[in-house]
């Protein structure tokens, strides 16, 4: 791993617009040095998830330090779990985060931009479960 490699982030949503908008927001807050790749919607642009989109997003997000995958709801989680269970098909390490979508994406992006390793980025994303807005 090069010293400059940042953990990459993949945002998996049922909606392409939600994944892209969240990636844009997290990139603005986190300063733009992290590869945040949206994987939203089905292959034909509808609402749903696509294993092919997630697989290529993981490849695009990986710069050598691993990839954090953040799903929105339900079958996004299942799609990622099925992919992670395929041995040898993905770069290592790839981890699935159990975190709120927007807050988790923002927290993970800032941690990755600060140079945290995959464990640190996962911890930042999952700490977002406890963040209060008010």
């Amino acid at each position, binding site marked *: 791993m090069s010293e400059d490699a940042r953990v990459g982030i993949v945002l998996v949503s049922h909606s392409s617009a939600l994944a892209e908008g969240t990636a844009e927001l997290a990139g*603005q*807050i*986190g300063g733009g040095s992290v590869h945040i790749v949206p994987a939203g919607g089905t292959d034909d642009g509808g609402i749903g998830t696509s294993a092919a989109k997630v697989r290529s997003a993981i490849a695009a997000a990986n710069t050598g330090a691993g990839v954090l995958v953040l799903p929105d709801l339900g079958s996004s989680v299942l799609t990622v779990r099925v992919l992670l269970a395929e041995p040898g098909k993905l770069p290592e390490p790839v981890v699935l985060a159990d975190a709120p979508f927007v807050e988790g994406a*923002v927290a993970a992006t*800032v941690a990755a931009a*600060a140079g945290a390793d995959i464990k640190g980025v996962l911890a*930042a994303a999952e*700490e977002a479960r406890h963040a209060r*807005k008010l």
Partner: protein
Amino acid sequence: MPESSEAAITLAGDLHARPAGSLALAAAGFASAVQLAVGGTSVDAKSVLSVMGLGATTGKQVVVRATGPDASEAVAAIIGILARATPVGG
């Protein structure tokens, strides 16, 4: 005995999402522990969501405290970012 440092600033504008991100990122670059306090609430400056949830709005006094080998540099950097909070920040 670790070095410790503290300074305060009154915000000229609200601490919006992007400056909160810059602040957390800058804080994470220091070895020292860095805390931000507004009123009776104190949070880890390296946690962007905590910084956003602090309620650091126009006219509030923010106290920056750091403890560690680069405490005074950390406080100076964070105060610098807070000083750039303006009434039209985004």
